[in-house]
C-alpha cells in the first residue's frame, strides 16, 4: 500500500466517522426544540443560540478563560526551565526522569485530588508546617480558593507542557549555542535569539494542549475550588444531564469550539504578521 495514500485515507476516514458525523449530529441537535422525553425534536429553531447572550455565559467563559490562561502561564514558567534542565541530562537519565514524571499520573485522579486537599486544607501539610515554624498563628485559607484550583490544574497538566518542550530542547543543536557565543552573543541574546525561536514550536504545542483542555475542565475546579464559580464545563454538563435541554447544551458546546477556534486563528494571523515584519519567519521558506 502506498504510504501517502494510507496516511491520508486513514486520517480522513477516522476523523469523518468518529468526529465529523457525530458533530454533525450535535449541530443538528442545536437547532431543534428541547424535548427531554425524546432528547430533542422538530420543529427547527434558533432559540438555543438566542439564549447565549445571557451575561452569565459570558462571565463563565471569561472565568474559564482566565483560569486556563493562569494555568498555562504557570505550566510554562515552571515547565520551560524544567524541560531545559531535563534535556541537558544524559539520554538515559532523561528517559528515566521523564518516565518518573509520568508515573504519578497513573493513579486515579479522584484520590490524587483528595490527597491534594490533605496538603492544602486548614489542618493540611502546608498549614501544619507554617504553624510549626511559627510563621502564622491561624491557618491560611488555601483550599477552596482560586489558588487551589490553579495548583490542581497545573498538577494535572504540567506533563502536557513538559513533554513537547523536552522534545523541542532535544532538537536544539548545542553547536548553535557555541557558535552564538563565539560570535560574542551574551546569555540573554543567546536565549532570545537562538534558544527561544528554536523551541517555539514546542512552546506552542505545549501551550495548546494545556490551554484547550483546561477550558473544559471543571472537576478539579469543583473539588479544589469548592464549586463556587460556574465554569463552562459545569454549565454544559448541567444542560445535558440535569436540565436536559440538549439543543442548548449543543449550542453552548459548538459556540465554545468556534470561539476558541476564532481566538486561535486570530493569534496565528497576528503572529504571522509580526513574523513577516520582523523577518524572522522560517516557516514560509
Amino acid at each position: 500500500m502506498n504510504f501517502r495514500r494510507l496516511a491520508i485515507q486513514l486520517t480522513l476516514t477516522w476523523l469523518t466517522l468518529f468526529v465529523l458525523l457525530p458533530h454533525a449530529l450535535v449541530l443538528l441537535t442545536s437547532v431543534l426544540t428541547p424535548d427531554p422525553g425524546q432528547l430533542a425534536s422538530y420543529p427547527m429553531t434558533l432559540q438555543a443560540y438566542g439564549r447565549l447572550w445571557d451575561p452569565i455565559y459570558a462571565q463563565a467563559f471569561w472565568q474559564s478563560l482566565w483560569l486556563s490562561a493562569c494555568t498555562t502561564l504557570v505550566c510554562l514558567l515552571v515547565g520551560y526551565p524544567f524541560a531545559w534542565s531535563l534535556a541537558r541530562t544524559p539520554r538515559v537519565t532523561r528517559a528515566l526522569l521523564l518516565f518518573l514524571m509520568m508515573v504519578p499520573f497513573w493513579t486515579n485522579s479522584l484520590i490524587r485530588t483528595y490527597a491534594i486537599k490533605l496538603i492544602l486544607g486548614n489542618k493540611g501539610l502546608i498549614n501544619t508546617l507554617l504553624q510549626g515554624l511559627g510563621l502564622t498563628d491561624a491557618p491560611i485559607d488555601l483550599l477552596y480558593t482560586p489558588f487551589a484550583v490553579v495548583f490542581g490544574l497545573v498538577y494535572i497538566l504540567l506533563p502536557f507542557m513538559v513533554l513537547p518542550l523536552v522534545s523541542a530542547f532535544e532538537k536544539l543543536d548545542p553547536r548553535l549555542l557555541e557558535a552564538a557565543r563565539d560570535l560574542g552573543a551574551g546569555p540573554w541574546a543567546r536565549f532570545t535569539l537562538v534558544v527561544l525561536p528554536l523551541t517555539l514550536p514546542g512552546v506552542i504545542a505545549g501551550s495548546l494542549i494545556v490551554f484547550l483542555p483546561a477550558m473544559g475542565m471543571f472537576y478539579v475546579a469543583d473539588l479544589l475550588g469548592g464549586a463556587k464559580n460556574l465554569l463552562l464545563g459545569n454549565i454544559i454538563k448541567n444542560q445535558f444531564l440535569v436540565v436536559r435541554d440538549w439543543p442548548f447544551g449543543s449550542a453552548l458546546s459548538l459556540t465554545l469550539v468556534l470561539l476558541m477556534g476564532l481566538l486561535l486563528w486570530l493569534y496565528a494571523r497576528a503572529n504571522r504578521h509580526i513574523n513577516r515584519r520582523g523577518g524572522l519567519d522560517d516557516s514560509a521558506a
Partner: protein
Amino acid sequence: MTRLLKWGLVGGVFLYLYLPIAILVVNSFNSSKYGHVWKGFSLKWYTKLWANEALMQAFSNSLLIATLAASAATLIGTLMAIALYRYAFRGKGLAGGLLFVVMMSPDIVLAITFLVIFIALGIELGFWSLLISHITFCLPFVVVTVYAQLKGFDRYLLEAAQDLGAGEWQGFRHIILPLVRPAVISGWLLSFTLSLDDVIISTFVTGPGFEILPIRVYSMVKVGVSPEVNVLATLLLGLSLALVGIAALIRRTDRPR
C-alpha cells in the same frame, strides 16, 4: 551555582508531583478508612483488595485499554501528523479543524456523540467501543506533539532522500521516524495517561461486560472511596519504580562492554 539552581528546580517539581502520591502510599497502610488521622499500621486494605475481584478486574481492563489505545493512537496520530505536515490533499484543513474540535469539546458532548454513533453503526458497547473512543480523544494530543517536532526539521532532508530513491515507506522508517522518536514517545505517554483516567466518556461508551477502574472509583463516592484504591496506586507506583530500577541496572551492566 546554576547547577544547584537546575537540580533545585528539578527536585522541586518532583517533590510537587510526588507529594500527593506519598500521602496515598502512607494512607494505603493506614488502618483508618478516611485517612485524615493515622490510626495505626495495617495491611488490611491489601488483603481486601486481593479479595476484591471486581476491582482487580476493572484495574486490569483499564491497563489493557490504556496500553492498546495509547499504542494505536500513537500510530494513527503519527501518520496523521505526517500527512498534515507533508502532503497537500483535499480535506486537509477540515482534518485539522476536526482534531481541534475533539480537543476542545467538553467530555460530556464527546461522550454522547460517541454513544450515538456506536448505536448507529451497530457497534456493541464494551471493549471495542471503549477502544475506539479512547483512540479518538487521544489523537489530537499525539498529532500536536509530533507535528511540532516535524515542524523544526528540514523538508529538504526528506526530499533529498526521495531523490536518492528511498520509497515513502523507507523514508518514513529511516528518516522521519528516528527524527520524531522523542515526540512519538511523548505522545504515547500522554495518551496512556489520558486513557487511564477518563471517566465521563467511558461511562457512556462502555457496556455492562467491560468495566474500567476510573468509573468504579468515581462510583465509590456513594459509599466512600475505599483505601483499596490507595493500595492500587501504591502497587502501580512500586511496579513502575521497579521497572525504572531494572532499566537502570541493565544499563549499568551494559556499560563495561
